[in-house]
């Protein structure tokens, strides 16, 4: 007489995994030889298992690394995840402190002022194949680096724009002013680089300005996160840290 299906079904996953104890194997296989439904079930369990093994990695959005890198750079401890994101009550004195700390960021922004180039800082290409190759390499590297910075800036700007009033208007305005100053520096550096594409000082000042912009945007995102998580002290630390770094 055949073993009832209900007696063996709880062990069919073990069979599908090849983990069935040898003393049970024969009885279950004998049942399967006669039972199409249970054979179908085992086949399905194996399909599900095989498909699950094929589920691959998932690429995380770029902003996660930007935020991780920002927090690592600022040396702040990770904020614990909260059950629900709650909007904290505004404490006016804390906002004043944040705004004051953030003003320091703008004063640290480096603005390109047409630095005089030294011969060594200019890559000459005429009449020298190796150096011509260097110019190409530098241009390529420059393009890649610019793409990297611009992608980071775009991603951070996208996140910063999602702020739905979490930031106090004074702090938001301060951050916006900082970005305005840095944008001006970026524009000036770009102009200089267009006029003298091989100018190392122009390139350096452009990258410095882009890094500054990323710093400010990272600070904005961190502030939004800290405040959304109700961590006013953390927000104050972020602002103070940003002021010191800039």
């Amino acid at each position, binding site marked *: 007489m055949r073993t009832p299906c209900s007696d063996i079904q709880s062990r069919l996953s073990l069979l599908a995994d090849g983990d069935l104890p040898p003393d049970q194997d024969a009885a279950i296989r004998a049942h399967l030889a006669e039972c199409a439904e249970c054979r179908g*079930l085992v086949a399905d369990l194996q399909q599900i298992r095989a498909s699950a093994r094929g589920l691959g990695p998932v690429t995380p959005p770029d902003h996660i690394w930007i935020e991780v890198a920002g927090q690592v750079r600022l040396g702040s401890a990770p904020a614990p995840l909260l059950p629900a994101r709650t909007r904290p009550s505004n404490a006016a004195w804390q906002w004043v402190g944040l705004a004051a700390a953030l003003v320091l960021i703008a004063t640290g922004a480096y603005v390109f002022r047409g630095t005089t180039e030294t011969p060594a800082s200019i890559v000459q290409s005429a009449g020298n194949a190796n150096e011509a190759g260097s110019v190409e390499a530098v241009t390529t590297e420059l393009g890649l680096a610019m793409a990297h910075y611009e992608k980071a800036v775009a991603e951070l700007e996208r996140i910063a724009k999602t702020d739905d009033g979490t930031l106090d208007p004074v702090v938001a305005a301060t951050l916006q002013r900082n970005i305005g100053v840095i944008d001006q520096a970026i524009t000036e550096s770009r102009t200089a680089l267009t006029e003298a594409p091989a100018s190392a000082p122009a390139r350096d000042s452009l990258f410095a300005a882009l890094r500054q912009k990323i710093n400010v945007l990272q600070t904005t995102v961190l502030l939004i996160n800290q405040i959304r998580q109700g961590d006013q002290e953390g927000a104050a630390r972020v602002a103070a840290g940003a002021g010191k770094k800039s």
Partner: protein
Amino acid sequence: MTDASRAHADLELAERCRAQVPGAFDEVYRANAPRLFGLACRMVGRLDAEDLLQEIFLTAHRKLGLYKGESALATWLFRLATNLCLDHLRSRGVRFSQMSEHLDGDIEANAAGTGAILGVVDRLDLERAMVTLTAGCRAIFVLHDVEGLEHKEIAKMLGISDGTSKSQLHKARLRLREALAGQQSGRPRPR
């Protein structure tokens, strides 16, 4: 790469991270984030996974001093990530210790009658079906079937018996079979 050279390379990378060498932690992130994000998405859902991935890497950065090279850095990070995912689920009220070794009668009764799944299981369908599982069942399915952990290891992490891990995995697969069969019945069959 041999195990010894891998261990040396991982320890050296961890040391560069501790010394804050530019690009070192970036390297760790780039190499491991996609796998860990996949794990987190499947364990806790996409929305919380983004926050959790940040927490995983910030915790890893803080604890890198504890990494001694006994296992691959990727394995060390995977364990850390798994524990954080499980802690997250516990903080959401999931009680692994209350999971039973016994299967619900209705699942067993339906198992044979559900009908076979036609052809290969589509990965997107499977991802969708996994969402329908309870968090505890899903965690065991992800750790065993997706990530390839053994029941003994899963049982230890969750504080349950091997038997409970096995029966909950079976339950998860039966539920997925039901859900996948349901998805397929609502779709035109290929000719």
